[in-house]
């Protein structure tokens, strides 16, 4: 609380009674123009409230809204991008990748489209996710890593039951197809051996030749025509330990991917193609 005020001897001005370490605050009056400036800001605020939306449910006289501002900016930007998008729609991914201007635009646009539509499963940088969401940044491609193959996969998707051209082969579940659990264990050991990660297992080798080599190749080199993944590398879609491989053989595992044709326009699919190809694993 303020102490009793007194008059400062040096200046003859009353003090406020506040004191800090012997320093006392003088009670000089404010200049009156300071007060008028304050009134002017209040008047300005009233004018502002009239013209701009400052109260809930009240549109200002100018009809200005932040949403409207955004729409106007978006319309301008879209109009600017329209000629470029038309070129991207008409060109093949190869032509886009070959031309620096189109390629730069496609990489930037593809990054946004990827974040919107693909990152949910494939990760923000295309790193994939455990449980059947393949990495798009490595050098292993189940259906091919050329621009054309990537575009086909994006357009029609995988095993989605909605597009006739969707990538769509499936591996049998060998526990139901007649193999016993011990046989499947042998088989898994041989599959791991293909990438030098398991012991030799002659019974497994024989079973592999009979049941798997047709699609995955004799040495597990895979077959992109039928979407049979390579087995003799260090990349595993569902895990590379014996239990995971055994489970894959016994029950069969296969992911799905939607067909993006019809959901995204051709320009966006072309941009996505170029972007995914540039993530690090693109093939000629």
């Amino acid at each position: 609380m303020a102490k009793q005020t007194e008059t400062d001897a040096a200046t003859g001005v009353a003090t406020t009674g506040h004191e800090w370490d012997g320093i006392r605050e003088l009670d000089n009056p404010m200049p009156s123009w300071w007060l008028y400036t304050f009134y002017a800001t209040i008047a300005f605020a009233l004018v502002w409230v009239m013209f701009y939306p400052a109260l809930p449910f009240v549109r200002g006289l100018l009809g200005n809204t932040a949403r409207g501002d955004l729409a106007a900016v978006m319309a301008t930007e879209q109009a600017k991008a329209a000629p470029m998008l038309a070129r991207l729609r008409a060109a093949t991914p190869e032509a886009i990748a070959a031309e620096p201007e189109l390629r730069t635009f496609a990489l930037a646009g593809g990054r946004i489209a990827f974040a919107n539509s693909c990152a949910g499963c494939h990760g923000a940088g295309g790193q994939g996710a455990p449980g059947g969401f393949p990495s798009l940044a490595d050098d292993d491609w189940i259906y091919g890593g050329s621009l054309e193959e990537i575009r086909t996969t994006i357009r029609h998707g995988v095993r989605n039951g909605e597009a006739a051209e969707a990538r769509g082969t499936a591996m049998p579940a060998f526990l139901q197809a007649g193999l016993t659990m011990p046989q499947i264990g042998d088989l898994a050991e041989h599959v791991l051996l293909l990438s030098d990660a398991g012991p030799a297992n002659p019974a497994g080798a024989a079973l592999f030749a009979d049941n798997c080599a047709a699609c995955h190749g004799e040495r597990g080199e895979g077959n992109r025509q039928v979407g049979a993944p390579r087995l003799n590398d260090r990349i595993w879609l569902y895990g590379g330990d014996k239990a995971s491989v055994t489970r894959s053989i016994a029950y069969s595992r296969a992911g799905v991917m939607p067909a993006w044709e019809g959901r995204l326009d051709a320009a966006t699919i072309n941009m996505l193609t170029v972007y995914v190809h540039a993530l690090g694993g693109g093939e000629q």
Partner: protein
Amino acid sequence: MPDIGPPPASLYAAHRKIYPRAVQGRVRRAKWAVLGILLGLYYLVPWLRWDRGPGVPDQAVLVDMQHARLFFFWIELWPQEVYFLTGLLILAAIGLFAATSLFGRVWCGFACPQTVWTDLFMWVERRIEGDRNARMKRDAGPPSRDRTLRRLAKHAAWLGIAAVTGGAWVMYFQDAPTLVRDPLGASMETWFFFALFTATTYVLAGFAREQVCTYMCPWPRFQGAMLDQDSLVVTYRDWRGEPRGKPKDAGSGDCVDCSACVQVCPTGVDIREGQQLGCIGCGLCIDACDDVMRKLHRPQGLIGFETLANLAASTAAAAELEPGPARHAAGMAARRPLRLLRPRTLMYAGVLSVVAITMLGALMLRETLSLTVLPERAPPFVRLSDGGIRNAYLLKLADKSREGGRYTLVLEEAPGLRLLVQDVATDAAGRPLLPVQGDGVASFRALVTAPRAIERQPIRFRLLDVAGRPLAAAESIFLGPQP
């Protein structure tokens, strides 16, 4: 009746208009000289030209907001080098502290834009409306055609000066000749800032004047911390002037209470009341008082630039003496020479030189080529089919020169790591060649591959020029699976 104290004062003080009288003298001449130099610099610097080659602005001092460049003669700065501006502000602040501790409020009294423009506006006012007495008389008198016309003329002249001031301000941000040739082609922003600085000049120098110093400016509030007993301040030598009286009165001091010092004061204070917030240290009261002393055939310097230490010494020496030449001589003899080298000023000088040398060094060692490496961390690394590990990096290559060029990128001290930059050509040895345009930034995506799983390790990207000499480098980290 009990003592109930004085009646409560109003919370708000009405503005008391100040009519400073014209004055001639040494201080006034110094102020005119400083005013001429500063205003000359302000209005003319945008017109200086500096040839930087084709396609580049040829204005010597230009803050190019549109292209995010600052030009100062031979120096060209990018926005990320704004710390040079910070350093300059620090220099200015310490310089202000040093000048204040040496010579008091010289900044306020001589060089502050508020003082300079107010001085200019007051000069215009005197030319049109006359000196103090004429103005006071006319303002107090009845409305007349003459008064209205003079006021109109004064405000027109003020607005003219203010417009030139606002115009010069925007010229530091735009090409000055283009702006003058085609003012209608200027952007809305340019017009806005022109109007803003015209308005602030008109209001601050025409109306607000000393109110800026006493109410708005934070500097007078804390500059007391820079002043000490040995700083030069504008001081009334009360030991010599008191007791005040008429020139013929026996036993009175040198002050004849003519109030010349109060009449010329631009902030309307009475310097005889001692050190005070309202005194901006302009020294015009010195000129006014010297003039009066000269006419009275008394020694000048009743008001002068004096240290508080000397004032105390003089006061002590003159205390017992009667007014007259003997008292004056005793008081003046007690003064000591100015102590410019004091711990405080030496410290300011030290800090000033450290900052100045640091900035100069930074400016001279400034590289025109810079490389920034941002590792991609989604994913942190990619496992390849053959068991190798790959990291991706975003490289940003900024070339602040005007030439541009192609630079070879190599990895230093990273045996076994393979470097690939997407979408660029390679030299004969298979090393990537990064092209960059002069005065531009180029982005590249680099892929670094280890043949087998390795642990995290630091790596360094280095740029080489065509002759293989090392240029800019940037450090980063290569990540692998945790063991």
